[in-house]
């Protein structure tokens, strides 16, 4: 019996030792092991891309002119002409990671992009629903684990802080976006587009949608929209419990706070340059004072703040009378899909609302950058931009410049009306404000948590 006990314990010890070794091995930054694994598990698609890429590089290096003559010139790591990209992308699958909480967007992406690129380019779209934080993490994790090729993500919908994180860690493929054939429709000379939250894009991401902040409100209970922050404050005091905003780090909650900083400073100018602590300290107290002043009269007495997605439910069911969104047409979409009652409308503040662009980027270790770029090129084509801007289909604002489109497309575009609760494009355009640099956002969010949430 003593022997038996000894055997059992030896087993346990051996297993434990093995676990330790297994755990330690990976931490050793053992490039050799990881690379072998990477190579072994590489998909055929990735292998195909790589061969093409290698071939291209030699061609490009040897005679640049030949490459250009052979087709549409295109400049991205591993590719010399757009035809090479198309060839490499043929028959592949693109893993596109994007936020998946809207059944409308999910269905639209699969039907209006997935089906079309399958037909036109023989590319299969695999839309992966995930939070931006999760997939940015995945890239960081893969990088930390030495997965330098054959990565999971081919294309991802990111912007702002996440873009800056990946760009500064040198974890993005590129530059590629300004060289896309359809980049001629993108106003790259517009600083609002060439910078993502103040971070120069530098060809590392391509636009995908345009967004502008609007307030949504229930006209059954709010006779006249409070279009200044003073009027909003007064309204909240008179109608306690019916206003709130999403908790940081929700990106809509975050942009609401940014508006207050612009309000406190009398405009966006102080926040457009490099982060400056003294400027921040100059305006921050007024913002915290405003927010702490309305706090007792917020929904639930300010005892808690909702998560962003829950806000729509609160507005739809009269728990609050206001909501806010980065998508000016969402109220119309939600009315059409039955989520919102028909009494919801939108407004912008007299002093304007922030606007920015959504982008797609390709990670450094993407298995299929060619397929990803073909997709990115398709979504800025006038053909798709017409689908995107049609209020009866997507109802999004477009990141491209419609005046550069073919005339036929322009005619269709100008025939579109606006959604029932959507503000006209000229009202939105005339009220658009630029985003501050990313570092400001980080400071504002941290300040809110410290000075409002945890107070």
């Amino acid at each position: 019996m003593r022997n038996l006990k000894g055997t059992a314990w030896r087993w346990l010890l051996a297993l434990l030792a093995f676990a330790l070794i297994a755990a330690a091995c990976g931490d050793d930054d053992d490039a050799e092991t990881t690379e072998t694994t990477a190579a072994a598990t590489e998909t055929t698609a990735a292998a195909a891309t790589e061969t093409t890429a290698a071939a291209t590089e030699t061609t490009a290096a040897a005679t640049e002119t030949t490459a250009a003559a052979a087709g549409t010139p295109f400049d991205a790591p591993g590719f010399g002409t757009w035809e090479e990209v198309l060839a490499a992308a043929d028959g592949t699958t693109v893993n596109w990671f994007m936020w998946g909480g809207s059944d409308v967007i999910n269905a639209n992406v699969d039907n209006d992009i997935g089906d079309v690129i399958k037909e036109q380019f023989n590319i299969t779209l695999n839309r992966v629903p995930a939070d931006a934080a999760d997939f940015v993490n995945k890239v960081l994790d893969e990088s930390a684990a030495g997965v330098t090729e054959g990565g999971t993500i081919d294309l991802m919908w990111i912007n702002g802080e996440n873009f800056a994180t990946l760009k500064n860690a040198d974890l993005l493929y590129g530059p590629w976006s300004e060289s896309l054939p359809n980049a001629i429709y993108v106003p790259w000379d517009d600083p609002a587009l060439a910078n993502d939250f103040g971070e120069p894009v530098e060809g590392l991401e391509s636009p995908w949608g345009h967004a502008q902040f609007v307030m949504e409100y229930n006209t059954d209970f709010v006779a006249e929209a409070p279009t200044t922050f003073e009027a909003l404050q007064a309204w909240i005091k008179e109608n306690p419990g019916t206003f709130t905003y999403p908790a940081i780090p929700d990106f809509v909650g975050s942009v609401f706070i940014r508006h207050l900083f612009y309000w406190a400073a009398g405009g966006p100018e102080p926040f457009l340059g490099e982060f400056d602590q003294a400027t921040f300290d100059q305006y921050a107290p007024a913002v915290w004072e405003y927010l702490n002043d309305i706090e007792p009269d917020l929904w639930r007495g300010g005892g808690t703040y909702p998560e962003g997605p829950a806000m729509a439910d609160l507005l739809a069911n009269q728990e609050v009378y206001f909501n806010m969104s980065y998508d000016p047409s969402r109220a119309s979409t939600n009315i059409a899909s039955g989520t919102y009652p028909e009494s919801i409308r939108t407004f912008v503040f007299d002093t304007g609302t922030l606007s920015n662009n959504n982008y797609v980027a390709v990670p450094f270790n993407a298995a299929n950058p060619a397929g990803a770029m073909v997709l990115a090129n398709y979504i800025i084509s006038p053909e798709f931009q017409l689908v995107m801007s049609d209020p009866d289909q997507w109802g999004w604002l477009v990141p491209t410049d419609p005046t550069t489109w073919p005339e036929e497309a322009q005619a269709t575009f100008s025939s579109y009306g606006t959604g029932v609760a959507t503000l006209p494009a000229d009202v939105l355009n005339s009220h658009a404000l630029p985003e501050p640099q990313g570092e400001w956002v980080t400071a504002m969010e941290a300040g809110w948590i410290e000075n409002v949430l945890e107070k």
Partner: protein
Amino acid sequence: MARTTELTDLAERESLRSRLKIPLMLAPAVGIVVLLFGGGILVGLGQSLGYFPAIGLNEFTFEYYGSVLTDSNFLRSLWLTFRIAATATVLSSVLAVGFALVLRQKFAGSRLATFLFQIPLPVPHLVAASGIILLVTQSGLTARLAYALGIIDVPGDFPAMVFDEAGIAIILTFLWKEVPFVGLVVLAVLQSVGPQYEEQARTLGANGRQRFFNVLLPLIMPGIMSTSIIIFAFTFANYEIPLLLGTRFPSTLPVVAYRLYQDPDLALRPEAMAISIVLAIVALLLLIAYRRLARYAVR
């Protein structure tokens, strides 16, 4: 002579086989748990102590534990996590015993009632939460009924049970799932014990209350103890239910730890790991204390 050696050989081989038999039977299960669970904890422990070479951390340090344990928000979250888990555990045990006592009786419809009682058992926690959200928010179906009956005028009049610091909807979801679990265990114990002890007590003149506290409860106590350990550990560590139904601040510890873990800033991971390790240690200590206490109480 040769024959004797053969026999000894055979006996030796036989005894070796029987000696190895049990370790071999246990090895696959124990191996998987030790490798995966133990290995995972080791990696987590290493990172919580500052060993994270992937981002250039190689020095062992207790700094992360220090910063976690001295943070007043950590203590607030710990208390919230404990309060929710403890309330869910105690309430589900008490309710489960009550239902088990009713369901062991034979009456018209008792089979159907037992089946209904079993339904939450296989239902995933997320679905339970999904159904409960529809009922208990301030504009949910119950609130609408209250409005129709003239009890409330606006949703804000209805008591807050979702996104509230008390965590009522979280506890309700756990109760909905765990009461049947404990109840069925208690029911199984009651059935295997049979009625003879109670009959004897009755013959000796014990009333209903005495029969319950002096006869039944000691019999089902071990079962309640084990299930409450399982439930407490589960609710203490659950992430998705408090995330869906709880307040943004304070959040329960698993939510805090997971948020830190998933932050794009990898430098926050050691802290996430430290919180998770503390969570595991606290749970283990509480359960050991509970077992000691329960044993002492039973005696």
